[in-house]
């Protein structure tokens, strides 16, 4: 019964209504959540579905952010071109880095992804002329929304919002499109093969699958979507900074993915919602957010390793069994 409800569409529609609530702050938080949800979901393709633990996923987020940032601020390029460029540039980097990474397994894979991410960070941190160095690149312009005012003569319901709210709408639509594509990927034979590789790489090899090539494809896809998320985040954040690519950022997005539930499609999105809302709540009481986050993480690892989605699924099954018996 509950399965018939088109949950993703409902969430999408609800997300579009947030600015109508009239609070700038809500829109801000929702925008943050939407972008991070895409970032975490992209990582899930790698960690949850393919079983490759990357400790350098922030590199691609950072590359995407710097790409749109540089193109829009320094080259004055339109968002319509700068956003796909983020995906393209990130995919190229992910292809080169991934080519080497998928040759390694387990801890060495994690270490090499970390090393590449730190290389990206070091370049962003020091290459002052291009990236702004340690200071980063503030004042990334918003996309141009003047056309909306012109169109709103014909379609009045479009007009009357702030630029940041227009950008929020754009973000929601783009992220929804990305989610749709990712969902298709995960459900495709290709996606099923990734899960097979996670469960048993030797067996996948035996049935004639080129495991490395599949892993590389997953790596590039995950990197690309992280890059798109980064491209949106740079604009949303009104600035791009080197710590977007620092290793602690990679750890943060891993935590988000784990909190939501690894290997379930919408889990990481749920993780983004939970973690960012919690952060907003807690930061107003105390400055010791890392302490709280660390504690949550410990509890999660010991008590709920399936994350929110995994635990909810288990609970639903338990209820189902109860009802079935009665």
């Amino acid at each position: 019964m509950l399965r018939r409800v088109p949950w993703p569409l409902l969430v999408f529609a609800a997300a579009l209504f947030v600015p109508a609530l009239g609070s700038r702050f809500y829109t801000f938080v929702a925008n943050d959540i939407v972008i991070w949800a895409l970032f975490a979901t992209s990582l899930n393709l790698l960690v949850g579905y393919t079983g490759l633990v990357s400790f350098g996923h922030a590199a691609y987020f950072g590359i995407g952010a710097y790409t749109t940032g540089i193109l829009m601020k320094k080259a004055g390029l339109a968002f319509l071109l700068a956003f796909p460029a983020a995906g393209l540039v990130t995919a190229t980097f992910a292809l080169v880095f991934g080519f080497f990474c998928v040759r390694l397994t387990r801890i060495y894979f994690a270490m090499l992804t970390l090393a590449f991410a730190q290389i990206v960070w070091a370049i962003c941190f020091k290459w002052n002329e291009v990236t702004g160095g340690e200071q980063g690149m503030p004042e990334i312009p918003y996309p141009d929304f003047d056309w909306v005012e012109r169109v709103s003569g014909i379609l009045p319901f479009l007009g009357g919002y702030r630029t940041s709210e227009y950008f929020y709408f754009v973000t929601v639509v783009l992220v929804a499109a990305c989610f749709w594509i990712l969902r298709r990927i995960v459900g495709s034979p290709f996606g099923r093969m990734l899960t097979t590789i996670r469960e048993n790489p030797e067996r996948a090899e035996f049935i004639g699958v080129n495991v490395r090539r599949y892993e590389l494809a997953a790596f590039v896809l995950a990197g690309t979507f992280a890059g798109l998320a980064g491209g949106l985040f740079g604009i949303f954040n009104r600035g791009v900074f080197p710590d977007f690519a620092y290793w602690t950022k990679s750890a943060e997005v891993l935590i988000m993915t784990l909190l939501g539930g690894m290997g379930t499609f919408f889990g990481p999105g749920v993780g983004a919602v939970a973690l960012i809302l919690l952060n907003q709540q807690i930061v107003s009481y105390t400055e010791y957010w890392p302490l709280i986050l660390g504690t949550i993480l410990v509890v999660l690892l010991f008590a709920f390793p399936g994350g929110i989605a995994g635990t909810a699924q288990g609970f639903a099954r338990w209820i189902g069994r109860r009802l079935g018996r009665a």
Partner: protein
Amino acid sequence: MPDPSFIFAQSLSGLTAAMYLFLIASGLSLIFGVLRVLNFAHGSFYMLGAYGAYQLVQWLGTGHGRFWWATLGAALGVAILGGLVERLLFRYLYGKEELYQLLFTYALVLILSDVAKIFWGTQQKSVSRPPGLTGSFSLFGTTVPYYNLFILLLSPAIALGFWFVLRRTRAGRFIRAAALDRETLGALGVNVDRLYLGVFMLGSFLGGLGGALVTPVKSIVPGMDTEMIVEAFIVVVIGGLGSFWGTFLGALIYGQVLSFGILFVPRFSIFSVFALMAAVLIIRPWGLLGKPLK
């Protein structure tokens, strides 16, 4: 071409940095070698060693010999903390996925960094050099502080002592055996749980000791933990995860690359060490002196 005395000074400073790094990274490498876990919290143990030494110096004063008691106390305190963490929490993750172990150690990083902030604030702290080692002398036109000389001698001495324990004592044989095959060692009647505890404490001790000894030359600031753990990772990856002499070699290479990188390509010296780490992982993932993991 810079003059020779300058090159000498650079390589000496690289060597000093390498000796600190070796102390700290050897603890990380030891824990990895036996427990097969990369401990992100090792940098936090290093930071707590530094804050601990600072605190003990505040309490004990700066009189003769006080610094050494503070150093030893801080390192022991960190070892006990490491032991508690292993005993109460970490051991329940041994059979679990690698990712859970990594994230658990990262949770410790988050928690301990805030604990340090709660106790010591965000102002930077410093400790003065211990009496008797405050001066410096001149060597080939370079000023060398006595304290640096002391570190240059102490670190290899600890390394040798450590190597002796691993190679020549019963406990050392057990540790090496545990690194190879935990089950068989347990079946032979060795208490592997206690051995793991001991190894974790010893590794934490080395991290804490490194942190305590670095206080006279570096100021103690929040963020020193996440910075150090990345450096220690580079060192153990270059040398070979779990390899003792590899860690030593990795530290030497890291120190020289960084200090000469600053000399010749100042902007990209950090870049060069990460590139080195990536290159080693690509060409020889198990490191220069390590053995491939089975």
